[in-house]
């Protein structure tokens, strides 16, 4: 298979005005991914599926990531001249990362037996601009997995044929896999609580136990 750089340049020459980035990956596996501009996502997906050299006909996995707003600290080495001697000094730079939701697609080719190519699409923010193009018209297998991401993260896939909740019930409000989701406080009994569970347990032991006393066993 071609390298990711070659694929990127071929997409850019085939589909002008398309913005692509290669996301580096420092972990040992080193699997890099293509960050695709959401507006041109569907064209890129169709290109990857139909291109004769790639034929990525199989979307094996779709998953979501929640990136809340965060301060990112990066350490930069700087050369500073102190009293005529050049020294290397580490400097930490704080940058503010805006929050967004990310959807990751893993693509393989059954016909040419290669892959994966990893695509990432990002929403503008986490609150109201959470629309992304649906790839279900391109890879039918993405249908349920996109529904799952809608269910748990709240990404709205435009062009999805049947965008409903799939794991949670229809009446459910909220997106439980987001970092700031507050889950229902319903596990009172804990024999050895600690940390945040201890805080929860303390609340229950003072309120619930006093009000509810187990009645005598009757018929």
């Amino acid at each position, binding site marked *: 298979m071609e390298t990711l750089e070659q694929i990127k340049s071929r997409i850019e020459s085939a589909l002008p005005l398309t913005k692509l980035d290669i996301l580096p990956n420092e972990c040992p596996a080193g699997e890099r991914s293509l960050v695709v501009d959401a507006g041109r996502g569907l064209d890129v997906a169709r290109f990857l599926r139909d291109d004769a050299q790639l034929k990525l006909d199989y979307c094996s996995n779709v998953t979501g990531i929640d990136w809340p707003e965060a301060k990112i600290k990066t350490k930069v080495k700087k050369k500073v001249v102190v009293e005529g001697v050049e020294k290397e000094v580490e400097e930490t730079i704080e940058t503010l990362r805006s929050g967004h939701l990310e959807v990751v697609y893993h693509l393989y080719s059954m016909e040419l037996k290669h892959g994966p190519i990893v695509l990432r699409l990002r929403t503008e923010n986490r609150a109201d601009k959470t629309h992304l193009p649906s790839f279900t018209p391109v890879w039918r297998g993405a249908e349920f997995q996109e529904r799952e991401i809608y269910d748990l993260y709240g990404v709205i896939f435009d062009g999805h044929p049947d965008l409903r909740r799939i*794991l*949670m*019930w*229809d*009446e*459910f*409000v*909220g997106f*439980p896999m987001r970092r700031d*989701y507050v*889950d*229902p406080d*319903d*596990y*009172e*009994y804990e024999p050895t609580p600690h940390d945040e*569970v201890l805080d929860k347990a303390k609340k*229950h*032991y003072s309120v*619930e*136990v006093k009000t*509810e*006393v*187990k009645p005598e066993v*009757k*018929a």
Partner: protein
Amino acid sequence: MIDEGLKSELQKQGVYVTSLQELYNWGRANSVWPLTFGLACCAIEMMAASMSRFDLARFGAEVFRPSPRQADLMIVAGTVTKKMAPLVVRLYNQMPEPKYVIAMGACAISGGPFKQGYNVLKGIDRYLPVDVAIPGCPPRPEALIHAIMTLQEKIRNQDLTGPNRPRHLNADVEGEYPVPVYGKHDLEPPKNSEVWHPPMIKR
């Protein structure tokens, strides 16, 4: 009530005496028909228990019925998600009396490893009266067989009259259990207060 000594003396003479209660309970205890109903990996152990190696048929409980109308016993085998819980209660309501519940495995008892999750019910005993709970993740088939034997023991010792009579012989007790509805974040109500109370912890 017949004296035990007289009973055994009569038995030696070839006269068998029993009470209606014993006969009734003997019949019920030896043909417990479970509902074919599995929720997760515990159900695999339940299937193993009913197959040739462990042979649940030795205890009269091998007739797994695919309809709640014909079943006596509900083995809650596996994780009960909040989405599934109302359906479990509804299935229980559809079973004819007398009926019993075995909570099989850590998840059915307390939520197990998913206890702190947002989507799993923390034990089916919040909605249903559980007769026997089997710990384990999953329990061995022998544990299920032991649970069924424990249940049989319980059925044999049930009084048919008096204050401890079973629910189906007590006209004052509601037959159906309220089915919870799906709420915005949790089931409503989150528990059946008639069945379940948060345990008291003494420190």
